[in-house]
């Protein structure tokens, strides 16, 4: 059902995945708030082999002026993959996929940010993927949320994101690149843990209603793990020794 034929054993008989993880185990995650001096807020995330840097500017004047909204501020997101982020050189011009992910991340962050206090202004989020290994949109969304909080933009909640998926008829947490390519389904989820609201839910693949429910539950559990690390990153910067 779905996935491509592959020599790779995605899930062995002991329930161990191709990279040695258990089915409900995320990859190694490291988040750091701050780091960019010239940005109003910034964050760096390592999500497995994904390495992503995010810079936030604003609220600031909107150019061109006709894009501004007299009732509220606007959020602009640019997701960009570096030419060296993948094994074959990627053209640095924005691709269709990058434009789509920019839109998806913007729409996932919009329920969280409170820009109604800053009419006629814009908050710009620049996401640079330095190294990609599957699940960059979730990692980028998590880092963008930390960068917005670091910039002091009022938010209803942090948005934590993690993907769930289906491999060898088993629901798994945090799909990596191989599982994304050869697996049966991939479901990135963005979640506001305090408000218990989902801000992003996509599904690539086919799931039964039971699998769908389990996938959402698994994804939300992953988001809660990410959320704890987001809070730790902000705590380290503002209340610990991680200040820059």
């Amino acid at each position, binding site marked *: 059902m779905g996935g491509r034929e592959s020599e790779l054993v995605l899930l062995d008989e002991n329930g161990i995945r191709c990279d040695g993880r258990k089915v409900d185990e995320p990859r190694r995650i490291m988040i750091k708030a701050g780091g960019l001096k010239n940005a*109003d*807020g910034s964050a760096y995330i390592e999500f497995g082999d994904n390495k992503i840097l995010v810079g936030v500017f*604003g*609220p*600031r*004047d909107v150019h061109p002026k006709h894009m501004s909204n*007299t*009732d509220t501020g606007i959020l602009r997101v640019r997701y960009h993959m570096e030419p060296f982020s993948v094994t074959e050189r990627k053209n640095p011009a924005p691709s269709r996929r990058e434009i789509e992910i920019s839109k998806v991340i913007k729409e996932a962050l919009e329920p*969280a940010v*409170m820009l109604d*206090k*800053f*009419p*006629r*202004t814009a908050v710009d989020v620049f996401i640079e993927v330095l190294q990609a290994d599957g699940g960059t949109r979730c990692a980028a969304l998590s880092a963008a949320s930390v960068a917005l*909080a*670091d*910039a*002091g*933009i*009022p*938010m*209803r*909640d*942090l948005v934590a994101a993690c993907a769930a998926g289906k491999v060898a008829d088993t629901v798994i947490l945090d799909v990596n690149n191989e599982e994304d390519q050869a697996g049966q389904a991939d479901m990135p989820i963005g979640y*506001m*843990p*305090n*408000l218990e609201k989902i801000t992003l839910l996509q599904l690539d693949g086919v799931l039964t209603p039971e699998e769908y429910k389990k996938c959402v539950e698994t994804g939300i559990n992953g988001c809660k793990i990410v959320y704890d690390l987001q*809070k730790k990153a*902000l*705590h380290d910067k*503002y*209340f610990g020794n991680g200040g820059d």
Partner: protein
Amino acid sequence: MSDIAIFPGDKIAAIEEYEAGYNAFDDGDMVRAATVGKMDIDKDNRVANIKHPKMLSIPKAGDIIIGTVAAVMSSMIAVTIDYINGKPTTSKVECVCSTRNIRRKNIALVNDIVTLKIISHLNGTIHAAIDEPHLGVLFTKCRKCGNKVVPMRDAIKCIECAWIDERKLSTNFGNSEFVKLRE
């Protein structure tokens, strides 16, 4: 002020107890934090605030700003904000200042550097006032020859061409050099 670290979305009080103040909001049931910071409860006024160490680049009511005049209209001037309470900002947001009640031919001209007091955020616009002695033009040049000017009560006089122009001058006029800002 509590030393507990607060993160966006954390519950800080019930709406029956406190109102949401700075960097806080209510979701209809609880008062929640909107930024990272420390809780600052005002028990006298029953307001829950969050103190965030970073200042946003949007001025609040009561802030003193320094900016460059971007446009002069018949009854107001538009000013691009460069400093908020003495701290530089790169946001370049604009505020408007009514000049209707000041009986003077010129209050300020385009490219003058002025200091204003923010009075409100209304209809999506930041409103500022200029009618206090320390508010007004801080730096300008002769509109005829571009040379230095000296203050003469509520006017300025060019030291080269002796051109006299009206302005609403600040008491701090000429105390600072804003050549860099002008560039």
